[in-house]
């Protein structure tokens, strides 16, 4: 079993509202991210993802619970592991009147890194040639790339990316996606918080889904999708007869655009046998895979409705 790079136990964060009440942003969250690979951190807006990340990085104080990075208690001993953690939290935040190079130089000097590291990071994110422009003149995509360059200054073992592709063009998104995948494959652990679920599904090996500050599901992407059951599409010469016999056999059947849609956890041979016993021969039996987006929306529907009520 892999060692845990990120571990939280009973993590809780309360904010006091101006009216004197309390708002719970993170509620008893147990998060476990194993070493290596890319771990998706998903949840609707306001579900507590960014607050959790900010607590892990020492920017926000937890109300209760414990957190560990690389097995080290944080925030108490965060300085011991801070150089192993690169992070982009929410939108990029740099001094607007400094150039991109100046912004990175200050951060590099903070950790004792030289200008060669700055130049290399800028080259990696394709900002060479614009590094002497003021940050405020950068496009949103360039700002995002500068933020990613900042994380590379540390040569981190853990990369925490909160919506890293915001504002990037399709080529930029693909580039960042490839970079994340390569980093995950090279042994760097990546915690990726993103709303673009198709993107997460493409690069993540595991994921945690939270809603209203609570954990809803966690595991490998494959395991998460398999828990939602499998749906099959069936085409036969007489769909009405097939519909009738399958329902009689206990299947949940609906009529789809391209045939009958059968939901349930029974194996596909049961469908074949039921229809064959009635002399109905299959023209098509196709498993319809549930994607992460569908799974996520199903899982968080109640949470989102609850939050909006």
């Amino acid at each position, binding site marked *: 079993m892999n060692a845990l790079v990120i571990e939280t136990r009973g993590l809780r964060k309360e904010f006091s509202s101006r009216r004197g009440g309390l708002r719970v942003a993170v509620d008893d969250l147990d998060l476990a991210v194993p070493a290596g690979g890319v771990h998706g951190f998903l949840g609707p807006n306001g579900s507590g993802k960014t607050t959790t990340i900010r607590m892990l990085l020492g*920017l926000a104080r937890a109300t209760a619970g414990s957190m560990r990075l690389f097995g080290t208690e944080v925030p108490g001993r965060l300085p011991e592991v801070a150089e192993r953690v690169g992070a982009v939290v929410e939108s990029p935040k740099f001094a607007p009147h400094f150039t991109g190079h100046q912004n990175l130089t200050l951060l590099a000097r903070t950790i004792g890194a030289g200008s060669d590291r700055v130049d290399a990071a800028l080259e990696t994110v394709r900002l060479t040639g614009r590094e002497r422009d003021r940050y405020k003149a950068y496009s949103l995509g360039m700002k995002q790339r500068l933020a990613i360059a900042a994380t590379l*200054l540390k040569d981190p073992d853990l990369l925490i990316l909160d919506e890293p592709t915001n504002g990037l063009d399709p080529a930029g998104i693909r580039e960042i996606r490839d970079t994340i995948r390569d980093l995950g494959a090279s042994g760097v652990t990546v915690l990726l918080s993103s709303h673009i679920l198709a993107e997460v599904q493409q690069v993540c090996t595991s994921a945690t889904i939270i809603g209203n500050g609570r954990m809803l599901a966690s595991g490998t992407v494959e395991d998460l999708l398999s828990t939602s059951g499998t749906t099959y599409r069936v085409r036969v010469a007489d769909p009405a007869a097939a519909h009738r016999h399958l329902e009689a056999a206990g299947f949940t059947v609906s009529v789809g655009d391209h045939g009958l849609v059968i939901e349930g956890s029974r194996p596909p041979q049961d469908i074949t046998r039921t229809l064959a016993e009635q002399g109905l021969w299959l023209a098509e039996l196709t498993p319809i895979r549930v994607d992460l987006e569908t799974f996520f929306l199903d899982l968080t529907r109640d949470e989102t409705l609850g939050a909006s009520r």
Partner: protein
Amino acid sequence: MRLLGVELTRLRWRRAVLALLAAAVVIPAFVFGAIAWETRPVTSADLAQAQQMVEQERDRGYVRRSLERCLERPEEFGVIDTDDLQAACEEVVLPQVEWFLTRQPLDLEQQLDETGSAIPVVLFVLLLLAGATFVGADWTSGSMSNQLLFEPRRTQVWAAKAGALVLAAAAVAAIAQAAFWLGLASLVRARDLPAPDDVWAQLPGLIGRGVILVAGAALLGYSLTMLFRSTVATLGIVFAVAVAGTFVIAVLPLGGDNERWMVQTNLLAFVQNGTDYYNSQVSVTCVGDGTGQDCTGLRRLSLAGATAYLGTLLVASVALGLATFRGRDVP
């Protein structure tokens, strides 16, 4: 030390701070220029112009009538017991060249009392602004959180920024004041004017207190901005305290010693190595009875008293600013 170096570099790259530091050098230089011009020696052209004005004045009717009246009734003009009445009346009534040469020569003692106190106060305001602006930009842009991702030890981050500001403020205050007084000393020497020894003896203390005051101002502006997380909020609070605080202190029952508790009185006392103020109650109620009772109401605020007052304000703002930065979430 590494963090201090980073913050010094950040300070050097911050244009608004640089502009304020430059102003802290330029304004004393400008004041020096104004003093040098206003006290410049009388030239032959000045003398010729004064002579011309004297002659114009002597030709005026009222001057001639005054001279005639002086010759008739010299006692009205204070001319008594003189052998040469004509000369004595001319001296009293007729305009003299000196009357039109109003420029005073450079007086170091006078400058020490007046400008010597004003310059540290001007630098105080500028460096308070610089301290607030320096870190206010970090909060406005949100880059403070980015910095903490690279150095999460908040006390060290706070101290490094404060250290950079204090160093810069102290250096600028020392350079600006030293240059100002060196300039005046050079003028005195070049114009062959008297320079009392006690003036030179007071200068190191004046400059030293000015440096401490200006460094404290930078630290105060910085601490308050770390507390309120906004340059505008800091400046608003400082303005409110400066204006409203004076009114509030004025109406508090402090036994007539209200002036002693005003910020400006303490600033002046610190810069001037103590200052006098008036106890308003004594001034109103005291009746001189010849017993030696003090009816002037004049009181002395010592340097130690002013240092305790200003130091308490500074330590309180530093403690609050640091505690807040250590404890609160960073956006």
